[in-house]
Every structure is written in structure tokens, then in C-alpha cells.
């Protein structure tokens, strides 16, 4: 944290190397947020890069009293929300995206079978996430992936704390409905498979 503040202050004075250190430090959470928001790696890479460019350009406006991570994630979330809103009317297939962004299974995991099940669960969750309203999605990602508090989410998304709570409740209910729907679909799919029958 001491390093972070020193880098921020140096970067505010125009030190590009200090800003690169900040990029290296925060590339993972920023990229993850963009990926969870947009659902595809190319778009996420572009959005993460744009986030750091915006942060670089607005560094003079950053208030050192606030958390740098929250400030950065707020820029990323707003950038992705804007991108999703612009994209709203263009065709967007969840199934297509699911195919393109499979996560690599963790080979070091003790039980590969359990890891595969976890991976499928994560993929299904990502699929459900794509159906949420962009702001609700940002709130969920910041809460569960970035471990942000409700106050930090409220600051980042320019909402009140009760609004964040209500959005998180609504989002989880919507995720559960989509989860149930996908579960039913997957059961139907398995039932229809001829090679799924015990006779084969």
C-alpha cells in the first residue's frame, strides 16, 4: 500500500514508470471486471487498456484520500456499462460468447474431476451474468470477484448504499432464475441424447 501511494504520487507528477507499476499491480482485477462485464476476452482487453488510459489522463483528478483500486474499478465499470449500452441494440448471443471464452482448468487442483465441475459452474454463472442489467452486473462483479464493500460499490457506481443492496438482491434473484432455467434446459438436453441412454 505504501508502494501504491508512492507510485500514484510519482505518476501524478508525470512519472510513466510509476504508472506502469500501477498497471502491473491492477491489470488482473481490472481485466477480470471487464471480462465479467463484457463476456469476451478481446473486448475485455480493449476495455481494460482504455480504463488505464482514462486513469492516466485523469490522474490529476484522483483524490488520494480515496482508495485507488476503487477509483480504477469505477472507471472500468463505467466504461463497460457505456460499452454495453451502446451495444444493446446490436445482436448479442450468449451461447456464442460462452463458446469463445472457456476458462482453462486448473491442472494443479487435487481432483481434476471436481475442478471440471467447478469450471462448468463458473461458465454457467458467467452465462447467467451476461443477462443481467449492466449496472447490476457491475455491482455483482465488484461484490463477489473484487470483494468490494457495499459502500465502495455505491461510491464507484454513484448509487446509494440501499440502492446497491437492493440491486445485489435483485441480481442474485435474477441469476437464480436463469440458473434454474439453464438447469432445466440441460436436463432436457441430456434426456434427448440417444447415447445418454443406459442402452448405449
Amino acid at each position, binding site marked *: 500500500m505504501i508502494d501504491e501511494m508512492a507510485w500514484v504520487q510519482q505518476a501524478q507528477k508525470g512519472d510513466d514508470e510509476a504508472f506502469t507499476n500501477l498497471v502491473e499491480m491492477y491489470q488482473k482485477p481490472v*481485466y477480470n471486471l471487464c471480462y465479467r462485464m463484457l463476456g469476451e476476452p478481446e473486448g475485455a482487453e480493449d476495455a481494460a487498456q482504455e480504463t488505464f488510459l482514462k486513469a492516466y489522463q485523469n490522474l490529476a483528478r484522483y483524490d488520494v484520500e480515496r482508495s485507488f483500486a476503487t477509483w480504477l474499478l469505477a472507471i472500468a465499470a463505467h466504461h463497460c456499462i457505456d460499452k454495453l449500452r451502446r451495444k444493446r441494440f446490436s445482436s448479442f448471443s450468449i451461447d456464442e460468447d460462452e463458446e469463445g471464452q472457456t476458462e482453462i482448468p486448473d491442472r494443479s487442483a487435487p481432483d481434476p474431476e471436481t475442478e471440471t465441475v467447478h469450471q462448468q459452474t463458473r461458465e454457467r454463472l458467467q452465462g447467467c451474468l451476461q443477462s443481467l442489467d449492466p449496472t447490476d452486473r457491475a455491482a455483482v462483479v465488484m461484490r463477489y470477484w473484487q470483494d468490494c464493500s457495499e459502500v465502495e460499490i455505491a461510491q464507484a457506481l454513484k448509487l446509494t448504499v440501499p440502492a446497491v443492496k437492493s440491486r445485489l438482491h435483485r441480481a442474485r434473484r435474477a441469476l437464480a432464475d436463469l440458473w434454474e432455467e439453464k438447469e432445466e434446459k440441460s436436463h432436457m438436453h441430456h434426456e434427448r441424447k440417444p447415447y445418454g441412454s443406459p442402452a448405449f
Partner: protein
Amino acid sequence: MDHRPFEDWLLNNQTLSANEKQQLNVHLQGCSSCSALAEVNLALKSVKMIESATGFSDRFQARLEAQKKALRRRNFWGLLVLTFSVLSGLVWISWPVFKSLIQSPVDWLAACLSTAVSIWASIEALFQGGRVILKVLPGFIPVYVWIVVLLIAGGWSLLWVFSLIKFTKISQGA
């Protein structure tokens, strides 16, 4: 099916007693909706961060450099166009003067000299008039009027400074 209070327990991530846990388990066995909510809760708790391809900061540096270069190029061309436009405007405005200077330089110099002398004389007259007013005016206006005027001016300045601070304060939301 009545989902209360089970749905609230799941949505609020409440700490449950052994008895409540048992009740919830019984409910989850027969309720697919609450069961899905419990599964989503579990899935959200086991989420993993995803990483970008290697070389992210190198790609960022290249992008930043390209943007800086583009900005420098835009500034250079912008300055060039602006300089050219201003110069063209000046030439266009002063064209009649240039024309007369080329046609009859002596007449033009004489006109310039007479204009300069008249401007100088006007300034001199204004200064003299101002000096007379400043000598005479304080005698006519009582001291309390000066105090009121100064207080109003000071208050107005303060109001102006505070409004500037308030309205130009940068939002830290994003």
C-alpha cells in the same frame, strides 16, 4: 410454494441456527427456486479471477505511446491551421492599410502620425481629468459611504470565490 423466510435467509446471507439450517435443507429439497438461489450463492462464493494474456503492460505502454504521438500530431496540425487562419484574417482585415501604404507611403505615414498624436492627447486629457476628480471627489463623499462600498465589494468577491470553488469542484465518482 411459500419461499419465506428461506429466500430472505439466502439473500441476506444470514447466519442460521442448527434448527433453521435443518428447516432450510428440507425446503431446498422440494423447492427448485430456492435451491437455484443456494447454488448461485455457492457459485458466487467460489468465483475465480481471470487473467489477461501475458504482456498486458507492454501493450498498454505501446498504446499510450501511440496516443501521445497522435495527440502531438493533432496539436501540431491544430496550431498550424490556427496560425494560418489568424494570419489570413489579419491580412484580410489590414489589406486596405497595406494597399494605401504601397500606393502612397508618405500620406500613410502622415495619417499614422496624426492618429498617434491625437491618441496621446486624448490619454493625457483623460489623466488630467481623472486627477482632478480624485482630488475633489473624496471631499464630497462621507467616510461611511466608502466603508459600505468597500464592504459590498469585499462580500461580492468572497461570494464569487466560494461559488467558483463550489461549482468547479471535480467529482471523484469516476
